[in-house]
């Protein structure tokens, strides 16, 4: 593949790859763009409602519990653990992609395995958090947490929280399923037959996007 296009030659006149990426990877980028706007719409709706409210619950109060330790009142400790798990699994995914470049099947399997474990651990944490909040009385249409200033809160907080973290969790679940499929395909030697591991890159892009969305969900719900 040629590196540079001569000055008087149009890049788009054919015979060249204007993006220099494989078709499927480009389409993955476009899909992720559209998905970003879906998540953006959710989070902006949340922001609009929050800006239009006189009061809002305090995340430090709502998200202070940690499993086993229970009511240790460590604000945000558990969600930091979830964030750490997700960032870590993003790293193992990059390492899987890197091993794919080297066509090292064993390494790809190893790092993909860790990524799947990380995704499953994140989902487990989220399941615990949801269960805990449910037992505290929070659910769609129910909000036991008063506003920060002590006034009565509406159910907007819980509705948005469960919808958006649920939508994100669903993405994580899809990502784990995709990674499991990639794991099986690698294990069966499909990519060795093809001669390249570009499929791992596409799965990797999706996985990093899930991590990216979490960064914003984390800021919007737990920090603000």
């Amino acid at each position, binding site marked *: *593949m040629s590196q540079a296009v001569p000055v008087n030659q149009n890049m788009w006149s054919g015979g060249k790859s*204007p*993006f*220099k*990426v*494989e078709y499927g990877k*480009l389409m993955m*980028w476009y899909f992720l*763009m559209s998905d*970003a706007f879906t998540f953006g719409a959710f989070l*902006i709706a949340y*922001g*609009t*409602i*929050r*800006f*239009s*409210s*006189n*009061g809002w619950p305090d995340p*430090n109060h709502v998200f202070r519990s940690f499993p086993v330790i*229970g*009511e240790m009142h460590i*604000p*945000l400790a558990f969600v*930091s653990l979830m964030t*750490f798990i997700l*960032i*870590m699994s*993003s*790293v193992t*995914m*990059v*390492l899987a992609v890197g091993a*794919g*470049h*080297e066509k090292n099947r064993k390494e790809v399997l190893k790092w993909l395995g860790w990524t799947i474990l990380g995704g499953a651990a994140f989902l487990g944490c989220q399941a*615990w958090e949801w*269960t*805990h909040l449910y*037992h*505290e*009385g929070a659910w769609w249409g129910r909000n036991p947490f*008063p506003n920060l*200033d*002590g*006034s*009565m809160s509406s159910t907007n907080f819980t509705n948005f929280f469960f919808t958006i973290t649920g939508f994100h969790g669903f993405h994580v679940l899809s990502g784990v399923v995709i990674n499991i499929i990639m794991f099986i395909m690698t294990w069966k030697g499909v990519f060795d037959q093809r*001669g*390249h*591991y*570009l499929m791992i890159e596409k799965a*990797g*892009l999706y996985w*990093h996007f899930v*991590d*990216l969305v979490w*960064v914003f969900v984390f*800021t919007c719900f737990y*920090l603000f």
Partner: protein
Amino acid sequence: MENVHATAAAHDHAHDEQHTFDKKAIWRTFRVLLYITLFELALAIGYYEMTFSNPELVKHILNGVFVILTLAKAFFIIAEFMHLRHEIRNLIMTISIPALLFLWFITAFLWDGNSYKNLRNDYDRHHLESSKEKVEVKEPAEKPETQEPGKIH
């Protein structure tokens, strides 16, 4: 190896990127993300533990800091983990220019929400008064949970 021709381009492509893949950069990105997140948490917990004479102003400044740090994290994930920084300019532009729409979305919608709040507080005094009423602090959580020993919590 019958399909050598079909995969030649893909081979070539995979080979091209091999040079830009750098494990050290990955771990550096990981550390940056980790430190930023820990710093954000320290700020959030610090704000929670301390008392300020003007808590609202502090909270606004803090939120501004969170926005900047979040965007920094997003940049590192997209640029390094998703490898966009190492793609060619055409691809970078086709992703980042549409993403600029978010600037307008966020500004317009948050502005709208804020304006709605102010208008409603001005013209619906009952809403303003009732949103200031304190509720008695009840902790519905503790009791049902302790009544169910062995349950996950």
